[in-house]
């Protein structure tokens, strides 16, 4: 029982990271129907920015987190303007390959400049162990930080999407781009904002991962990127609560599978769950069934 609780706490922390990345995937997919494969690499860059700020400039955790989010949001907007805008009206498959090319570009440019070595993230948050139930459950303060920051960011996102003009524009564009444009919504600007917000969340996830696991490398975005995407699809891609739900669900499942002896298969389990869920609910757990009109 204690072990289960312990694993659940770890699962929530991992799930927070997935959820943060998944949000960006889902927002971008919702608005331009593009699987943004480069999203996992934005998360990697977020981690590197955090690393540079803490190691070379000696900044603290919170300033690094904020600056990293800012840098990532700018990067996201640049990627959208340079790479995705020219292919906005092209075929799905061309768009997908473009996204992959952007992803490769980010990964290997980073490999070229920072070398492929794994680096150690400095201890910016003091590791403080809390014990509960007479030491049967150990919670690192870092876990609490990660979970709190994730909740804060999600609440912020929820506010932006539902209570602000930008959020309303985002929802309008994702439902019908042409109609939104006719109603006076600046579609280009709205898409830019979406990329900015999604990327900043990925940046935050990058810094949090650096803090949590202490190591970063230029290809660190590939696997969590895919996993977060799986999380987004699990919840129903394009649906914001779906991404959060999918992220936590995947994080917890993975932690539990690893804890109970299946660690080598944990990635396979994630993908198996994905396939099974899609077979039962082809549009994700929270997705609506869309049927083509005849």
């Amino acid at each position: 029982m204690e072990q289960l609780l312990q694993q659940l706490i770890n699962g929530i922390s991992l799930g927070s990271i997935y959820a943060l990345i998944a949000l960006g995937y889902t927002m971008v997919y919702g608005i331009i129907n593009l699987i943004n494969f480069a999203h996992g690499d934005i998360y990697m860059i977020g981690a590197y920015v955090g690393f540079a700020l803490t190691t070379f400039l000696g900044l603290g955790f919170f300033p690094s987190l904020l600056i990293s989010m800012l840098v990532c949001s700018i990067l996201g907007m640049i990627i959208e303007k340079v790479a995705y805008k020219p292919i906005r009206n092209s075929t799905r498959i061309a768009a997908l390959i473009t996204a992959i090319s952007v992803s490769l570009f980010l990964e290997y440019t980073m490999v070229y400049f920072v070398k492929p070595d794994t680096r150690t993230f400095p201890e910016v948050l003091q590791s403080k162990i809390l014990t509960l139930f007479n030491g049967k459950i150990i919670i690192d303060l870092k876990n609490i930080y990660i979970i709190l920051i994730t909740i804060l960011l999600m609440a912020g996102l929820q506010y932006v999407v539902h209570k602000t003009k930008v959020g309303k524009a985002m929802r309008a564009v994702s439902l019908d781009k042409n109609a939104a444009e006719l109603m006076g919504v600046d579609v280009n600007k709205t898409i830019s904002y979406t990329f900015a917000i999604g990327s900043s969340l990925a940046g935050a996830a990058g810094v949090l991962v650096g803090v949590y696991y202490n190591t970063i490398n230029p290809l660190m975005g590939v696997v969590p990127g895919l996993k977060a995407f799986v999380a987004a699809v699990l919840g129903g891609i394009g649906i914001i609560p779906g991404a959060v739900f999918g992220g936590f669900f995947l994080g917890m499942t993975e932690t539990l599978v690893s804890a109970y002896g299946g660690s080598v298969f944990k990635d396979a389990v994630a993908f198996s769950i994905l396939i099974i869920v899609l077979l039962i609910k082809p549009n994700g757990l929270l997705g609506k069934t869309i049927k083509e009109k005849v």
Partner: protein
Amino acid sequence: MKKNIISFSILTIIYFLVKILLDIGIIDSYLQLNIFLIGINIILAVGLNLITGFTGQFSLGHAAFMSIGAYTSAVFTAKLGQSFIVAILVSGVIAAFAGIFIGIPTLRLKGDYLAIATLGFGEIVRIIALNIDYIGGAIGFNDIPQYTNWTWIFMMTVATVFLIKHFINSYHGRACIAIREDEIAAEAMGINTTFYKVLAFAIGAFFAGIAGSLYANYFYFIKPDSFGFMKSIDILVIVVFGGMGSIEGSILGAILLSIISLFLQGIPELRMVVYSVVLFAIMVYRPTGLLGKGEFKLWKKGAERNVSIESK
């Protein structure tokens, strides 16, 4: 008939020309490696083109079928001591069964969802291979006999291209294209869409299995990570670059992309960066591919704007 004779003569000339050049050593082993890889890539791309380009089913897991073929062939030749032709055929058949196995459930999915399910399947195959000690696990499968030579590569490539071309120019092949064009109309014309989708998957997987077999018995050594997500993407890039729904395009795409990567070998540390830029440029300036005929409706973004949301 005249056309057949001409293509037969051209193929014979190519075969003997390369064979002689190989025998007298004008083609060195490095160039030979690349020629063989081109052949393997043509087989893979033509098979994937049947699935994605002709039948319109988005697949991001083609390398998994190649992996299944490669490991089957390795087991049959290295462990069971079977002849190469047996290994090739068994590899194809087992990969085809894998295609059917994954095809039947997942082909209810459409578009991006199918892409993700096939991606997931590819990763599952890779992870399983990593954990089976009998086939070497993460260390890889060693000491596979090297049976693959120019004759095998040439024969298999030509056979793949001809068989798939024959398939496409039949009523079965037309049914596949009709599914790509309009699934509902295809069903209304009496086409069993599930059957044809699974069939396309099985045929594509069969040839990918053969490609895997040729690959394994050329390199002595295979490991699960050679057939990961990026390999699937590489095959897809050949298909899209050559032109969706064009067999000639896939052949041309495989050759040109191999030449590009040959040049990029000279700058190892920037190779992937340049490759990504080339890829990007192709997608922006020629999204329909070299020999692509135009944009298919299915691949148009926003095609699903016509759907109405119904609760069922």
